[in-house]
């Protein structure tokens, strides 16, 4: 955004600032600029890194076993012994959170990668090929988007049945359509761009144009979409789990922990609110990072 605005000001006042306009700075320069100008995005990146480290080293970091029951200490509030308290089975919530973060992070990243790959491929194909392929893909996307995502996810989960893999598949199927739409519109505008026409004049073949000229210029958008879709996937999964439709025990995702804790909302609110807060924190971090990336990488995406 900042970049865009600066360019508008420069144009309005008709002054020359070559190094300032920075049409297509190198990726590294952009990242450095974001680090300098957007502290929040950097802090968020750090938070995300911490979560990832926590998930990877869960066995080392967990103070207690995540599955062993301890009925003597059930529902004990956060305190010295159990930093985040214990649940209805007396299990240490911090330990369960650490293990749960593995599922929740995976559920954020894997389906997003799948849906991005599918959406980007279909969107680019539709935009580049046009004609009936375009019409087909876009009508399909319309259909996917017309059904509220929660209900779509519910119907797909019903069809596929429970299980982590099925959650991955469901979230991928739910999210590809919006990615496809954005990538298609970008492909369309890139297809009309002069440098793609210039490549055609030179005789570059169509697949090469797609790979060398269109894909690299879609990449910033895809990176930004990725950081914004991961939290969306985490939220959808947690909602599904909250309804008891997502990950099933003994896999512990944060959403599932909230679902179980809900029965104890009034006497042990930390059971629900600790995992909720974790979801909020990671989603917030991804959103901040996504905003920061968008500002430097792809200011035009703002209104999508």
């Amino acid at each position, binding site marked *: 955004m900042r970049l865009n605005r600066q360019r*508008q*000001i420069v144009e*309005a*006042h*008709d*002054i*020359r*600032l*070559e*190094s*300032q306009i920075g049409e297509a700075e190198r990726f590294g320069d952009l990242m450095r600029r974001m680090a300098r100008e957007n502290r929040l995005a950097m802090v968020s990146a750090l938070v995300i890194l911490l979560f990832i480290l926590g998930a990877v080293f869960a066995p080392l970091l967990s103070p207690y076993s995540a599955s062993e029951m301890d009925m003597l200490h059930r529902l004990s509030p956060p305190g010295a012994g159990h930093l985040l308290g214990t649940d209805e089975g007396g299990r240490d919530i911090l330990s369960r959170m650490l293990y749960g973060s593995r599922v929740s992070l995976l559920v954020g990243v894997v389906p997003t990668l799948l849906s991005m790959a599918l959406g980007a491929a279909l969107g680019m194909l539709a935009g580049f090929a046009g004609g009936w392929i375009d019409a087909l893909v876009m009508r399909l996307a319309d259909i996917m988007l017309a059904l509220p995502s929660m209900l779509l996810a519910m119907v797909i989960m019903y069809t596929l049945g429970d299980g982590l893999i099925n959650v991955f598949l469901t979230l991928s199927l739910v999210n590809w359509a919006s990615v496809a739409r954005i990538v298609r519109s970008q492909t369309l505008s890139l297809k009309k761009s002069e440098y793609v026409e210039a490549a055609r004049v030179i005789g570059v073949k169509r697949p090469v144009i797609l790979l060398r000229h269109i894909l690299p210029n879609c990449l910033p958008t895809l990176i930004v979409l990725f950081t914004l879709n991961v939290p969306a996937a985490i939220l959808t999964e947690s909602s599904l789990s909250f309804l008891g439709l997502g990950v099933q025990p003994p896999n512990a995702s944060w959403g599932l922990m909230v679902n179980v804790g809900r029965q104890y909302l009034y006497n042990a609110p930390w059971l629900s609110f600790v995992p909720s807060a974790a979801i909020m924190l990671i989603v917030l971090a991804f959103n901040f990072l996504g905003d920061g990336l968008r500002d430097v990488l792809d200011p035009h995406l703002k209104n999508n």
Partner: protein
Amino acid sequence: MEPMTLRAVGLCAGIPTQKGEIRAVNDVSIDVPAGSIVGIVGESGCGKSMTARAIMGLMRSPARMTGGEIWLNGRDIARLPERQRRALRGSEMSMIFQEPMTSLNPVMKVGRQVAEAVRLHANVSRQEADRRAVEMFEAVGISDAASRARCYPHQLSGGLRQRVMIAMAMVCRPKLLIADEPTTALDVTVEAQILRLMRNLCDAGTSILLISHNLGVIAQLCDYVYVMYAGRIVEQAGVIKLFDHPAHPYTRGLLNAVSSLRRGGERLDTINGVVPNLLRLPEGCSFSLRCDACEARCAQEMPELREIAPGHKARCHLAEREAWS
């Protein structure tokens, strides 16, 4: 001495950045006598648009005016509070822009947009404002004015839109019209129509400050011309004198570039190099790096804007010598 509609003295404006302030307008003084057309000419990035915006008080943040006086009809408006400054815009001074495509509100009928200007400065009814708008449309040569007034901008051609802009600017009969590249986005036949319209406005008593990069437009319309380069005025003179006896090497370079194009022949005259980055201006004269006549002192000290003949000033160490030759 003739009365001055506008007298800008020592204008400075710039944009603050991490790498320091960009001085896009540096000590620019401009006089617009009543009833005349004064031009500012320069290439892209010379600061001419920002000068116009500074005078109008239409800087876009973070760009800002950092110094200077602006005398409009005999009073300094540069330090007026924004409220009073605003009351002047549209009534005593107005401005038209380069892009008639984007300068009109796309979701508002054009007649309404002109009537809006009326109602801002005159206490009249909506019907009366609409009537005056249509009247003004006729005055700027829009045929079928009443029905055109009910159009949205996208339904009009570029030339008509620019006429609407002029109608909007002139509807309250301001003394001063600032026109920032008013014909650059238009075709030549339309450009000619708009130029004639502006000439007529001037004949009717409006003073015009015309910003353009097109020497043809300047030659056809202006009485007096300022040449800007890298944020400063490098030469100013009456239009005939400027075109016949340019004193600054930059002005000469520009004129040669244009006239060699018209002369025919194999090679065209050019100016070496490119317009410098405002953040990295050379020491001494800003034009020194591109100047064929550059001497040692040109690279060391910035020349003053000196009078070399009555009403003719140039910012060049060598100007006098050249003017005699």
